[in-house]
């Protein structure tokens, strides 16, 4: 776009006569009027990448995933076996994060714990999203009686204090990683189902969905192609926020002795093992698991917040 600056001395009287001729239509004028349009995902990414807090969360998560995979391999020590004579060594060149009450290397155990935390977190989010999309999608799309019954079931499940159910299940099934994940997802999918239902109910009344219905498109196709892609935003946000709460739940359960148990490494177990140690001043046994679990949850939370802002079409400018 070209702006011709007019010298200030131009007044009504001294405007040259030749300016009073029909104006040439500028070719690119019409194109200029249409603002450059970005696709939804590109636009969201652009906004997310400007959010430094969320981006640092993302970077931390990537690093954590890398370390969870390669950390234990790189370390010369075993995570679950230690040398008792090497008990409570402070951080040093050999043991970067020190050693714990059984002489195990805290560095190795931290990444072993990251494996468990991330595995539980991602699995829980994945299972939640699968059940949630199916349940919420059907409930929201069908509406009417189906929706009513499905929502009542959700309402009932929602009322059950989930930690109690989880604990009961763990008591009966016996603690293991799989039990924890099953226990977490038994009630965990409810939140996701509610979100999907809300989205689907909103979107299904839009014209383009009504149009494809009028053409006789199959229901499953409408849900897969029309509804889900357009409700992905809130679903992704909810997934991101499910991960830290699952990580928390695993740590919590391991901490009270219902999840992973010593000598296996989990951040919850490590925190519990070090309860006695903090009184004697061996701070590192608590510090590292505490630091990493908090930072991991922080990273997922800020990423979730950032995604929420980035994916919310209301904020689009």
């Amino acid at each position, binding site marked *: 776009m070209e702006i011709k600056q007019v010298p200030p001395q131009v007044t009504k009287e001294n405007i040259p006569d030749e300016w009073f001729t029909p104006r040439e239509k500028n070719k690119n004028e019409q194109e200029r009027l249409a603002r450059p349009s970005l696709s939804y995902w590109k636009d969201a990414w652009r906004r997310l990448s400007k959010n430094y807090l969320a981006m640092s969360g993302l970077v931390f998560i990537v690093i954590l995933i890398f370390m969870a995979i390669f950390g234990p391999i790189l370390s010369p020590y075993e995570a679950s076996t230690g040398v008792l004579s090497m008990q409570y060594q402070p951080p040093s060149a050999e043991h970067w994060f020190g050693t714990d009450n059984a002489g195990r290397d805290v560095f190795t155990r931290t990444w072993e714990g990251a494996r468990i935390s991330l595995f539980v977190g991602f699995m829980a989010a994945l299972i939640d999203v699968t059940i949630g999309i199916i349940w919420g999608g059907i409930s929201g799309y069908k509406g009417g009686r189906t929706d009513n019954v499905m*929502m*009542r079931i959700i*309402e*009932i499940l929602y*009322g*059950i*204090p989930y*930690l*109690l*159910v989880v*604990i*009961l*299940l763990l*008591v*009966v099934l016996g603690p293991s990683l799989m039990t924890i994940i099953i226990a977490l997802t038994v009630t965990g999918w409810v939140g996701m189902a509610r979100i999907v239902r809300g989205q689907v109910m909103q979107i299904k009344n839009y014209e383009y969905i009504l149009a494809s219905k009028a053409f006789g498109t199959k229901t499953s196709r409408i849900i897969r192609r029309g509804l889900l892609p357009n409700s992905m935003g809130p679903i992704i946000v909810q997934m991101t926020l499910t991960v*830290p709460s699952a990580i*928390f739940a695993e*740590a*919590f359960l391991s*901490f*009270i*002795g*219902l999840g992973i148990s010593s000598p296996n490494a989990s951040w*919850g177990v490590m*925190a519990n093992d*070090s*309860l006695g140690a*903090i*009184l004697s*001043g061996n*701070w590192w046994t*608590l510090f590292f698991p*505490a630091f990493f*679990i*908090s*930072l991991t*949850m*922080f990273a997922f*939370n*800020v990423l979730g*917040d950032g995604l929420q802002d980035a994916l919310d079409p209301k904020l689009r400018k």
Partner: protein
Amino acid sequence: MLKYILKKLLIMLFTLWIIITLTFVLMVSVPGSPFNSESSSNEIVQQNLEKHYNLDKPMHIQYLLYLKSVVTFDFGPSIKQPNQTVNDLLGRGFPISAELGIVTIIVALISGITLGILAALRHNRIIDYAAMAIAVLGISIPNFILATLLIQQLSVNWGIFPVATWKSWSHMVLPVLALATGPMAIIARLTRSTMLEVLTQDYIKMARAKGLAPWKIIVKHALRNALMPVVTIMGTLFVGIMTGSFVIEQIFAIPGMGKYFVESINHRDFPVIMGTTVFYSSFLIIMLFLVDIAYGILDPRIKVNNKEGD
């Protein structure tokens, strides 16, 4: 309104029934008789238990008798502490847990709402950023980690507060702090976001156009509407606090219900597990129900549109 309450009541009763049944099914499906384990060393206790739970009778009779015992609030004796019934343990532990829970939720509400309002009114300024930084940290640090860190710093290193037990107000500070931080953060974030949304509403503009004083607009028009969503999550938060207190009571050696519950799990003391689960769930579900009713009273729209009130 009556229809709304009845609907919620029905759902509550149904939820309760599911919890009670679930507990029963899970306990029955534990391999072997739960009372034959090596932990129940006392012969007499075991006979009492078998009798109490009618283990010799067919399953459906067992179930009905179990339902009866729940309704009559008779959870039977403990295995580990032979001279104690589950009711004794509940009677001793529950008041302490409830006290901890109530103090915590009050602290979380007051600090969370204040922080949220301040952040919203100073949107995109330093107070806002600081408040939200505190809030994200509060959500990210697990309560048991915070508890241990607090003990390490404030009790062991600096000696400001007592390490454990439950005797005076100063004993309360650390557990309440550890337990309240998470809910406070959640309340602060929710208050801020709803407050920001409410402040852009037309009725706020209208109130300004009437020439009302700013504090009046905030207190009378904005706050009430902004706090509605906070009321809706109160129930869930309270549930979170009460279950969270399991681990906090463990760490601080507070003789509340959580302590008995965790102990009973570690000892596989099934009557106590069943009793506490049922009692606790009922308590929490009733709390959720009361919050729903409170919400219905606060929001005049619910009285009519209860069909859309989901």
